């Protein structure tokens, strides 16, 4: 199993939506709303950073002798 990015973009966006929805629909106490707001801003900037990452190099999937998988740079 390869190392997955700890902040899955989809998860970031879903949580952000959830936060905005809660703030818009629920009557939250002020402190709670500030906490959520802060979290929301953090999520938005993390997501933004992900989107602005540069182009990645293409890799090749290789199966090794012991039936494990590894990635190799692809020269095209």
């Amino acid at each position, binding site marked *: *199993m390869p190392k*997955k990015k700890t902040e899955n973009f989809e998860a970031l966006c879903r949580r952000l939506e959830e936060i905005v929805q809660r703030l818009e629909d629920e009557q939250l106490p002020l402190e709670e709303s500030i906490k959520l707001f802060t979290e929301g801003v953090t999520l938005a900037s993390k997501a933004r950073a992900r*989107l602005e990452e540069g182009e990645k190099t293409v890799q090749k999937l290789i199966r090794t002798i012991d039936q494990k998988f590894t990635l190799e740079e692809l020269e*095209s």
Partner: protein
Amino acid sequence: MNFTIYTVTELTRQVKDLIEEGFPQLWVEGEISNFVHHGSGHMYFSLKDEGAVLRAVFFRQYNSRLLFRPENGMQVLARGTLSVYEPSGQYQLVVSELRPSGIGALQIAFEQLKARLAAEGFFDEERKRPLPSFPEVVGVVTSPTGAAVRDIISVISRRCPPTEIVLCPVRVQGEGAAEEIAEGIRAFGLWGGADVLIVGRGGGSLEDLWAFNEEVVARAIYHSPVPVISAVGHQTDFTIADFVADLRAPTPSAAAEYAVPEAAELVLSLEDMLLRLIGVQRSILDTGVQRIDELERDISVKRLTLRLEQHQQDRRALVDRLKRATVSRLEAAKLDWARLRESLDALNPAAVLGRGFSIVRTPEGEVVSNSDQVSVGREVEVILSRGGLECRVETVHPEKKIKTIADLDDGVHRPRS
């Protein structure tokens, strides 16, 4: 007359040689009938047309490569050689290759496999999975050379640079290609690092695309834990892989567009979301500030009322104190007045007179307090507590007087002079 008398074996042998040499490898067209697929794997059938019937045998080692299932009534093209089976005196066609005539073996195979897999539920809409809205890694199963892989890489890099691309290079046509493609799909499933797969190749003929019609590829896609987008050939080409895949794309470029979102658009919708977030928080804060203002006003009014009440209370207390002070002053004043009167009374000459003293006045009205003031024979007036006397001085005693406390003092402190 000379007759050659053959034995059956000799004759049959000669017929066999004649037939087998006279008819080397040939193609025969006819309709299949009496088809039997024996348990041994060998196929036995007859080829017939309106005029004749030809027995045929299709041995297992040849028929295993069949792309379709022969059925009675099918028009076929059979390639093979004639042979005579001496023990039964039968000649037959030993088939090495069989093709449907007319439509084409591939086409028939395609239809047959499609029907079979459809029946097994491979194409059901319900089992098709939704694609991830933002794949972190796209797995690609295709040829490492050719336009397909270049198009896919270029589209993904442009549309969504953060997404990683992992290629499992395979042959996409020819012997063994189907197995390689299936293996690639399975490898991605085992590796687990890809969020979506693109499986496909560029355009070509039905034979070129054939690998994607093979059952092994269909099964690999069906069992893939990762959603699969198929992209085989051109717009109008539909392969079995396309039917089994979770999504079919008309071209490899289209597949890449389906696979990843446009990052630029996502940035805009993120900004939108951020605006909503700020907006809603601002209105929450505004509402909060409003409430605080209201509460403050509330508090001010309350405070004012409280102070007012306090004032009133203080005032009442003061008034009470004033009242009480006034009363006691009045009492004190009364007391003072009473004492004063008493003192005054004591000093009142009338009281003094009451005690037995008298006032001696000259006729001129001068009060006599000293014996020097009068001489013998003078007339004086004596005023008593009640009444008065008119007297004449008979004798004057200059030294006689009543002792006072001062005199007593004098007697003690001063030396006798």
